[in-house]
């Protein structure tokens, strides 16, 4: 009986001691209050110091913004021009850049077809260069970049002209002397260097060649750019052979 009672008593003591451990003693409370108060005071001081630094930085930022604006105003005063003129300049510059981008994406053949636009763009660039606003380095760099890209397009066109790939013409010679027929003309190295491309010359000159077997000395033929035969050209060849082989 005593043993059982003792066990119950011990169990109660353990439970009671656990409950006591969860509660804060006055001394522990006091210790924590002291610690937290010190920490709070430190943090308050630190916050005041950081706030002062932030205020100083805000002032510095505002001062720098004013210096920057002043500098930009001086720069604009130097080159003159109203806000509207500056916007017009920027719009014109963007138009030139977009135009050059458009031409740069074209195939050689399409570029050749639109080569007249190069002069119009050059005219716009020249106008931009003459404007005092082009003295501003950002504008100056954009104009220079546009000029460089336009020069590259000009070089491409010059190369196409020199290589005879675009806008070339051929004056038909005599059969006796030159053995000129569409097949032989296409075979010439400076034309296509490929006799099988003769339908290109035929289709490119439908206005003056009705029958590809008949061309005349002195005829000035346009030579389309060298490229594989198109479906239309192939169809024209099929039709030609069908007629030729018809009984």
């Amino acid at each position: 009986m005593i043993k059982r009672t003792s066990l119950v008593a011990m169990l109660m003591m353990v439970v009671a001691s656990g409950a006591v451990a969860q509660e804060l003693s006055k001394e522990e409370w006091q210790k924590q209050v002291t610690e937290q108060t010190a920490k709070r005071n430190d943090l308050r001081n630190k916050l005041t110091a950081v706030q002062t630094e932030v205020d100083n930085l805000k002032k510095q930022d505002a001062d720098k913004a004013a210096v920057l604006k002043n500098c930009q105003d001086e720069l604009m005063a130097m080159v003159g021009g109203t806000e509207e003129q500056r916007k017009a300049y920027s719009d014109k510059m963007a138009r030139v850049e977009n135009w050059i981008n458009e031409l740069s994406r074209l195939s050689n053949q399409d570029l050749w077809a639109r080569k007249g636009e190069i002069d119009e763009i050059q005219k716009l660039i020249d106008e931009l260069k003459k404007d005092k606003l082009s003295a501003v380095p950002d504008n100056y760099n954009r104009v220079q970049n546009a000029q460089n890209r336009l020069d590259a397009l000009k070089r491409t066109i010059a190369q196409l002209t020199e290589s005879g790939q675009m806008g070339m013409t051929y004056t038909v010679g005599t059969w006796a002397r030159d053995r000129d027929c569409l097949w032989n003309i296409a075979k010439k190295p400076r034309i296509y260097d490929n006799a099988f491309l003769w339908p290109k010359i035929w289709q490119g000159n439908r206005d003056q060649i009705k029958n590809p077997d008949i061309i005349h000395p002195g005829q000035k033929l346009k030579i389309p750019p060298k490229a594989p035969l198109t479906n239309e050209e192939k169809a024209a060849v099929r039709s030609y052979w069908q007629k030729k082989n018809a009984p």
Partner: protein
Amino acid sequence: MKKTSSLLLVAGLIAGSTLIGCSSKPSDDELKQLEDLKAEVASLEREISAKESEKASLAKAIADKDAQIKKCQDDKRAAQSRLQGM
């Protein structure tokens, strides 16, 4: 005899726990004071952290403006020189 012993034990336990319960303990107000202190500390820590972030952003903004000011001054010199050549 056994019964007496048991009673004594129980009495002792009750007395002991009463004594422990009566030992010095913070009041509810004092406990609330401690909780408030802890909450204030946590709030201050958050506030300082936010201010440190703001400080870093401002320092970056100032550095950016320094670079822009330098560029503007260079631009002014270049523009001056180009205008003389126009």
